[in-house]
């Protein structure tokens, strides 16, 4: 048992933070978000080539660094702090996780090295028209078997779907959900859907008879795991953003003077920031534990991922609201980065499910299930519910 970073992990986190603080200034983040790709291509090159951020969780046999999702999580935390847009989550987490969960050795050999290198951007088309990432019966895309498989339908909220050269799709088959590699990425209709958080780039992808290769049939268990990895990654991103909100608030409250002294010396505000720190610290703890479980394929992954997803979303939501409250009016101006924290909180709070849904899912995993409907109906007939 050792809940502390190794020297290598510390070094990785330090390097990522250093690169980002140099390149992802407030102006650079805004310029990148407004650019055509939606991210800073030069920064991505530095991060992938010099730090190797996209290769971390990919095994060495596929051109990766062969460390784990935990290390990816550390980089995501630094990215969350910087607020910089980046294809790391869409490509090196979602895309790579889907390929790693496939049964297709050839696809792994062919696709993963480019993703690890950062030269290839992958995207995972999964969410349906209601923005649901369903693991058992995805309803956005349908696959039909023929000479080759073809895909039909619409996938929403595809992270980095606009710029991806490799598209992996989750589609319903007559035998349950399947994972597919889209063979002709050019045949996919792509419409960018501007998000409240401009640092996340989403697209809606439409498929009409697009040829695809089956990477894994009977993919429900794989999707469970991909979802767990995805929510862990988002949790790490949220921890970084929450830390940013806290730091921003502390810094501002030391400088801003009211009634003749810095507002950070007022006990009421001090205590609110102390509570923010509590949220950030516990969020980091749950996110790290979940990321470690993802990285080591630990048996506790489903519970820890759901707990982290619920806790970190709520923590960032709280911290972001307090950040706005502590800054006052300037927080809601375009110029101030507090609005980026706030929007990041609201966008990531919905990605792969809201905190409430993760909490309910966790309840199911722990056996905290609602009583059968018949039993409760019967009870309500005989006596007033006591609850």
């Amino acid at each position: 048992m050792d809940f502390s970073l190794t020297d290598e992990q510390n070094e990785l986190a330090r390097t990522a933070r250093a690169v980002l603080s140099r390149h992802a200034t407030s102006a650079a983040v805004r310029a990148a978000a407004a650019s055509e790709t939606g991210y800073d291509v030069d920064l991505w090159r530095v991060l992938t080539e010099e730090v190797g951020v996209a290769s971390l969780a990919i095994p060495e046999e596929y051109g990766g660094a062969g460390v784990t999702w935990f290390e990816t999580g550390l980089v995501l935390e630094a990215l969350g702090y910087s607020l910089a847009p980046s294809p790391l989550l869409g490509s090196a987490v979602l895309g790579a996780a889907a390929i790693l969960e496939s049964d297709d050795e050839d696809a792994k050999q062919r696709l993963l090295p480019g993703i690890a290198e950062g030269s290839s951007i992958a995207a995972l088309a999964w969410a349906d028209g209601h923005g649901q990432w369903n693991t058992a019966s995805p309803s956005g895309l349908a696959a039909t078997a023929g000479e080759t498989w073809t895909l039909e339908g619409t996938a929403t909220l595809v992270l980095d779907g606009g710029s991806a050269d490799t598209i992996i799709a989750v589609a319903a088959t007559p035998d349950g959900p399947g994972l597919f590699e889209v063979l002709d990425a050019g045949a996919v209709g792509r419409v960018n859907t501007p998000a409240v958080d401009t640092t996340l780039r989403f697209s809606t992808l439409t498929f009409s008879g697009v040829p695809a290769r089956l990477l894994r049939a009977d993919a429900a268990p794989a999707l469970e795991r991909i979802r767990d990895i995805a929510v862990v990654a988002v949790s790490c991103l949220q921890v970084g953003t929450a830390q940013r909100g806290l730091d921003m608030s502390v810094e501002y409250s030391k400088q801003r003077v009211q009634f003749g002294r810095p507002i950070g010396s007022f006990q009421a505000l001090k205590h609110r920031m102390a509570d923010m720190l509590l949220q950030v610290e516990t969020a980091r703890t749950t996110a790290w534990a979940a990321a470690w479980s993802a990285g080591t394929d630990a048996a506790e992954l489903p519970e820890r991922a759901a707990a982290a997803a619920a806790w970190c979303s709520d923590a960032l939501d709280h911290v972001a609201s307090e950040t706005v409250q502590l800054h006052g009016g300037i927080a809601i101006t375009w110029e101030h980065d507090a609005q980026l924290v706030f929007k990041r909180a609201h966008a990531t709070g919905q990605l792969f499910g809201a905190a409430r849904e993760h909490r309910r899912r966790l309840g199911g995993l722990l056996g905290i299930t609602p009583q059968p409907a018949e039993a409760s109906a019967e009870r309500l007939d005989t006596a007033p519910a006591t609850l």
Partner: protein
Amino acid sequence: MNLDLTDEQLAFAAEARAWLAEHVPAAPLPSMDTAEGFAAHREWEATLAGGRWSAVAWPEEFGGRNAGLVEWVIFEEEYYRSGAPTRVAQNGISLLAPILFEHGTDDQRTRYLRAMTDGSLIWAQAWSEPGAGSDLAAIRSTARRDEARGGWLLSGQKTWSSRAVWADRGFGLFRSDPAADRHRGLTYFLFPMDAPGLTVRPIAQLDGSTGFAELFFEDVFVPDADVLGAPGDGWRVAMSTAGNERGLSLRAPGRFCAASDRLIDLWKTGQYEDPVARDAVVDAWIKSEAYRLYTWGTVSTLQDGGDVGAEGSVNKVFWSELDIALHETALTLLGPAAELRGAPAPADGRWVDDYLFAIAGPIYAGTNEIQRNIIAERLLGLPRGGDGRRKS
């Protein structure tokens, strides 16, 4: 980063679990704040010592197992999970002993440590005074030099002294230099509770128990051999106790993990369907788990040679608030039966008893207001002295 236990640690956990399963009394002991319950808890300490489980982290020569911090946390988890009795020896083992190890004389260690582990010597703590609660440096009780007898005469009043009604000895700070101000001129003393001149008046709590007492000192003689650390150095000596009480030793995560497990069982055995209450049950699990993991982080920091310092305040605020939320959730589930105490009540009224204990959490061991000040000033670097209105 590695959240797995080693084979040795797993074996240690299994050994503790097996021993506890065999020895933990089947029926809960009477409250330790009654004469009968105190004796029963004292006896349980002796049983624990028989298995060498009283103070696992201590050196073997004092009855410990020389176990590391990780093993200590593991043992605490197993201890609470087994439903074993509350430790009546806690003041001595968790608060005083760390100071004896650090500042005590060999003679003091020999006289006191082993006797702490087998229940033969139970300690009361005597910190607060009517005018010195959270503001401990405001202590007014005095110690006067008695050269002729080679010791000190203690006078004054202490309050909120836990276990004092039945304890054998007590420890606390007294002002030995009347001219010195606040943190200076304090000395740490060890004294017998039956010393001439010492009067103990029990304080009944709102839950009906008498876990605390007021102590009245009238020239209570303490020999030099029972001064802990140097005279006048009491504040520095004592602060390691405060750190202990607020940090790891007082609230091991096992307590909350066990409570959240019981809450989940309560949900499973009851006929509940309310989705919001269900979320609250799940939340209790998440918080207990977060606290458990956070504690592992603290343990790792300590093992790497780091210092807990102000992070103990983060611990304190988090566990005290999670404890209340967890018990409020249980009471909500119990509905009209929640207020009942004693045998006819669900779980013999344990939920409401533990709730009453929980609501005191934000007060003792440094109020949560004090803790938030510490977090804000020491961890976040916010300016001091901004409390309340400025006085002209």
